[in-house]
């Protein structure tokens, strides 16, 4: 039952991170409001033309999620680094990937909750009108978030322990996320335009492939980056 025990360890780490966050809510409030603020700024930058706003909605939404969510990842290691708790965590007799799995789970839930606030605001602000495709669009959100959070959690494990972590994380992360951004925006657009057959399928496949490749690669590489 070693694997079951590992999963319990991962869940314990995830629960610890979520509890810390729930007790203060400071990180969540800041990130969610930053997301809303970025959406507002996009609205101002793109002008009041309803049609233009509607077309840019998916792109603006995803950029708001990326720019606000990226602030959450360093935080998830920062609390431990400040408290000198990372080394004790590494000393526990358990595989290292359980730490990554726990942090990944906590960050994923965090980002999904932020999206639960930011997405409705985007729909209202950008006057997205669609009668179809909401279910599939939500699925695309989840797939995109998995890719985003996997690499975000992975790179933050390094960036949070370096100098200049605030600038290093986006610098490392955003170029890697271009396939996620393209696939999420394009497939949301295709789905919400009420034409799910257009080309959403290929994009969703790309998202799934990206998620699988980088979840596996991050889990494998995490052992190497956390031990030093």
């Amino acid at each position, binding site marked *: 039952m070693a694997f079951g025990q590992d999963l319990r360890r991962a869940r314990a780490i995830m629960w610890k991170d979520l509890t810390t966050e729930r007790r203060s809510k400071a990180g969540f409030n800041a990130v969610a409001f930053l997301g809303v603020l970025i959406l507002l700024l996009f609205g101002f930058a793109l002008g009041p033309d309803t049609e233009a706003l509607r077309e840019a909605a998916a792109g603006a939404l995803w950029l708001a999620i990326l720019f606000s969510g990226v602030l959450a990842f360093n935080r998830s290691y920062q609390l431990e680094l400040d408290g000198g708790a990372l080394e004790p965590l590494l000393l526990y007799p358990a595989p290292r990937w359980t730490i990554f799995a726990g942090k990944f789970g906590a960050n994923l839930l965090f980002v999904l909750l932020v999206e639960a606030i930011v997405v409705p605001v985007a729909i209202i602000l950008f006057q997205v009108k669609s009668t179809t495709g909401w279910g599939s669009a939500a699925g695309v959100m989840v797939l995109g978030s998995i890719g985003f959070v996997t690499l975000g959690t992975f790179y933050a494990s390094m960036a949070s322990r370096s*100098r200049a972590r605030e600038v290093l994380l986006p610098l*490392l992360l955003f170029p890697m996320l271009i396939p996620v951004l393209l696939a999420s925006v394009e497939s949301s657009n295709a789905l919400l335009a009420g034409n799910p057959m257009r080309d959403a399928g290929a*994009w969703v496949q790309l998202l799934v492939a990206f998620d699988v490749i980088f979840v596996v690669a991050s889990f494998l590489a995490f052992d190497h980056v956390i031990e030093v």
Partner: protein
Amino acid sequence: MSRRVTPESNRLTVTGSGRSLEWFGLVALVALIAAQVLAVLTSPPERDMGHLQKILYVHVPAAWNAFMAFFVVAIASLMYLWKGRERHDLLAASAAEVGTVFTGLTLALGSIWGRPTWGIWWTWDPRLTSTAVLFLVFVGYLSLRSFVEDADQRAQWSAAVGLLGALNVPIVYMSVRWWRTLHQMQSNPSTVDPEYVIGLRSNGIALLLVLIYFILKRYRAARMERLVEHMAERAALEGRDRA
């Protein structure tokens, strides 16, 4: 952190005066000049582009060799994660620096060529865009290296980042291609007129020599830097000031 690494197998050495490397550099320079002269003399002005086409003799070989450099980064990173030897890390770093310069050269020359040919400096063409993304991924790699002081950390982390970056190259390329399918074929010996092939091939080889020279030169310098750091560390541990 020493997995399967003995001090013996991990020892860095810098031997010789480096004069043979300088001779190699001279050969590379001469080869580059000869290839350029050959290419410019043998190729007629192109029908649409005229002599503007000559820029391809640097642009295309630079792109080929940039990919070659990133291939070296990926292999050396993998070797480092596998064996844990410092020299693989230093080789990856050297190749990444040179590859980034070559990628920048490719992008800049492409832009200079694109302005009179397409009428625009930049187009969101898949090849262009994914080259720019590759450039940014490795700029991130190099800034990670400069932001981390501890040598072991720097080596482990940049090996992971280099590998993930290399893994992403085909995915980025595919996604950008689906996003924008309005583009032209890349230039290689099978898509250009035979009159231009010899110029492209010879410049490809000449620039490969330059690439190898740059990487070896940088690798030598990197090993020297690390050796000095090791000496300083040893001196500090032994309580002597040998500097």
